[in-house]
């Protein structure tokens, strides 16, 4: 009896302590907001955006576990547990989409990730200022072209009759290929397009990191007798390694997010076998076939995989290279 009382008493003390510290924190927050309101004001739009477009939709995620119909609404639809996931994993198309997502992402990681780094290192070696600026502008440009136009350019370039690629192949006496209907050509074209569009713009981050390297490290190396090649390997790359790792973690977090607009614009049923990824699958299931609940389950699966990947990458990086996102 007294024992329980003691426990209860202890509990009361705990809560008052916690209350006091909560109150203390609230006072602190209030003062902070009052003193720094301009900063909070600037923060506000982002917070609102995140609530509206990232957190509020999470409420709808529950339909992944419900037999959802638009007419009943989210709340009234009955729970069905893991049924939709069962359906998905019984579906060969979904399994294929996972495989394709992983393969495209892997290619993107292997070829697409190093591209901006190499580009930045190359720009860094260009001494002629005007030439450097011109070259940079040219490679940044594709980033600013909308995806639809990019898809148009790609479609035209690879078209079997008038396309640049086939024309050039014609000069060498090669038969023309209708690339965009060939499953084996889809991934190289897609990954190549991604590199062409984003490598230049992506190099800005690495150029900024390179610009942050203390110039006297290079001067010291010059006096020591290092060549430009040695300086790149022994100074530049190690110095920007933390940036490279951070970008890699972000990239891994986005592994399931292959830019599916471009896929939708470029693929056709003939190339689905290599081009259909989870997101395009979700799009067809949800928006075109109206199976919102199954699509939500697929989307949730995607998100969970991405979450696990980014956590793992971050943990590994923190452990082995002392660099991490958080």
């Amino acid at each position, binding site marked *: 009896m007294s024992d329980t009382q003691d426990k209860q008493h202890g509990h009361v003390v705990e809560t008052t302590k916690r209350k006091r510290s909560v109150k203390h924190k609230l006072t602190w927050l209030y003062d902070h907001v009052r003193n720094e309101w301009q900063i909070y004001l600037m923060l506000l739009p982002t917070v609102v955006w995140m609530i509206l477009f990232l957190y509020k939709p999470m409420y709808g995620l529950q339909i992944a576990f419900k037999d959802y119909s638009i007419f009943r609404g989210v709340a009234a639809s009955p729970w069905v547990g893991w049924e939709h996931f069962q359906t998905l994993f019984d579906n060969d198309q979904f399994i294929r989409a996972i495989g394709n997502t992983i393969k495209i992402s892997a290619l993107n990681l292997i070829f697409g990730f190093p591209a901006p780094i190499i580009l930045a290192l190359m720009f860094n070696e260009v001494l002629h200022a005007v030439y450097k600026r011109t070259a940079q502008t040219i490679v940044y440009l594709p980033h600013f072209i909308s995806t639809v136009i990019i898809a148009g350019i790609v479609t035209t370039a690879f078209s079997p009759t008038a396309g640049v690629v086939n024309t050039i192949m014609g000069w060498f006496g090669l038969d023309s290929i209708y690339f965009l209907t060939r499953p084996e050509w889809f991934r190289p074209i897609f990954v190549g397009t991604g590199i062409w569009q984003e490598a230049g713009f992506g190099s800005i981050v690495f150029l900024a990191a390179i610009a942050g390297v203390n110039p*006297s490290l290079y*001067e*010291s190396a010059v006096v*020591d*007798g290092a060549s430009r090649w040695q300086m790149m390997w022994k*100074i530049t790359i*190690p110095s920007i390694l933390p940036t490279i790792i951070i970008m890699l973690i972000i990239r891994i977090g986005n592994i399931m997010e292959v830019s599916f607009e471009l896929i939708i614009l470029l693929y056709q049923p003939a190339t689905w076998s290599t081009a259909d990824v989870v997101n395009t699958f979700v799009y067809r299931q949800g928006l075109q076939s109206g199976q919102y609940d199954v699509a939500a389950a697929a989307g949730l699966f995607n998100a969970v995989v991405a979450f696990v990947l980014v956590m793992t990458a971050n943990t590994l990086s923190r452990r082995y290279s002392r660099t991490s996102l958080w």
Partner: protein
Amino acid sequence: MSNVLINKVVKSYGRLEVVHGIDLDIAPQEFVVLVGPSGCGKSTTLRMIAGLEEITDGTISIDDRVVNRVAPKDRDVAMVFQNYALYPHLNVADNIAFGLRIRKESKEHIAESVKEVGEILGLTPYLDRRPANLSGGQRQRVAMGRAIVRRPKVFLFDEPLSNLDAKLRTQMRAEIKRLHKRLGATSVYVTHDQVEAMTLADRIVVMNGGIIEQIGTPMELFMNPANTFVAGFIGSPPMNQLRGNVHKTADGTKVKVHDVLFDLPGSLAVEEGQEVVVGVRPEHMALTASADSFEIPISLDLVEPLGSEALLHASIGEEPIIIKAETHGDIAHLSGVSKVYAPASLVKVFDAKTGLAINEQASS
């Protein structure tokens, strides 16, 4: 060890000329310090010796070989940078070994040299630490280690101690001096701290606005500054400079500052009424009279105790003057001072217009 010869060297950045043709002859094993105010071209000169800046005009030779067109790595110089320039991703041993690795020295030679340098600089316990985990003084030592491990012909230092606190700076200063004694390498050392210059240098080069004002041993510069700039730069506090006019009296040539007559040493080439600046070092004045000293009445303003000495801030008319006086453990007796004494032999005279020292004529 080798000599460095700087001959009419000019440096321009575009149209802007920042070094205006300087001449300097550095003897083998000599420790030369370049001092001067910020922006006077010390670093630029040093970097031209290192080969990090192109030489616009004139020549620099190392060991009688003109190096204007020689790449930095082939000049056999080593440089210690103000911010140490340590590689953050390498540990101390690898930082020290960097230059040797670049030169593809043998593994055994590298290991041996790193060990030896670590011992010389007291870095042995830190060899596998990264620079981020070292104190400022230790980083400084690693930077020195990187330079000495290569056994270069010439050491170049660009304000190596300016990021350290005062105490550590004094300590490292002594260490650099010891190291120079031990290695005997020709050294060019840039600083804007005149105390560092005085304590380290065999010869000091005072620079100002891209020219050399004076070259000399620390004591030459202290006792016989060539002009008012050097007089005001060397010494702490610097030499007092008082404006006055030459008065030829029956008693000899004097300079009248406000209403005080300053005795001058020997026979100087000055004319009656000429505007001059008399220079007297704070430490050359005393509170008591001596054989050849003359009296200077002052109005005392402020006493700054430094411990064994105190600075008396005073004035003669409008002209401020600082006197360094012994405290003998108490400053009470200094508050009533109304006159000080200076020996005529230690008074310097400069032309007020050109700022150049007016020296004693060789007695004929």
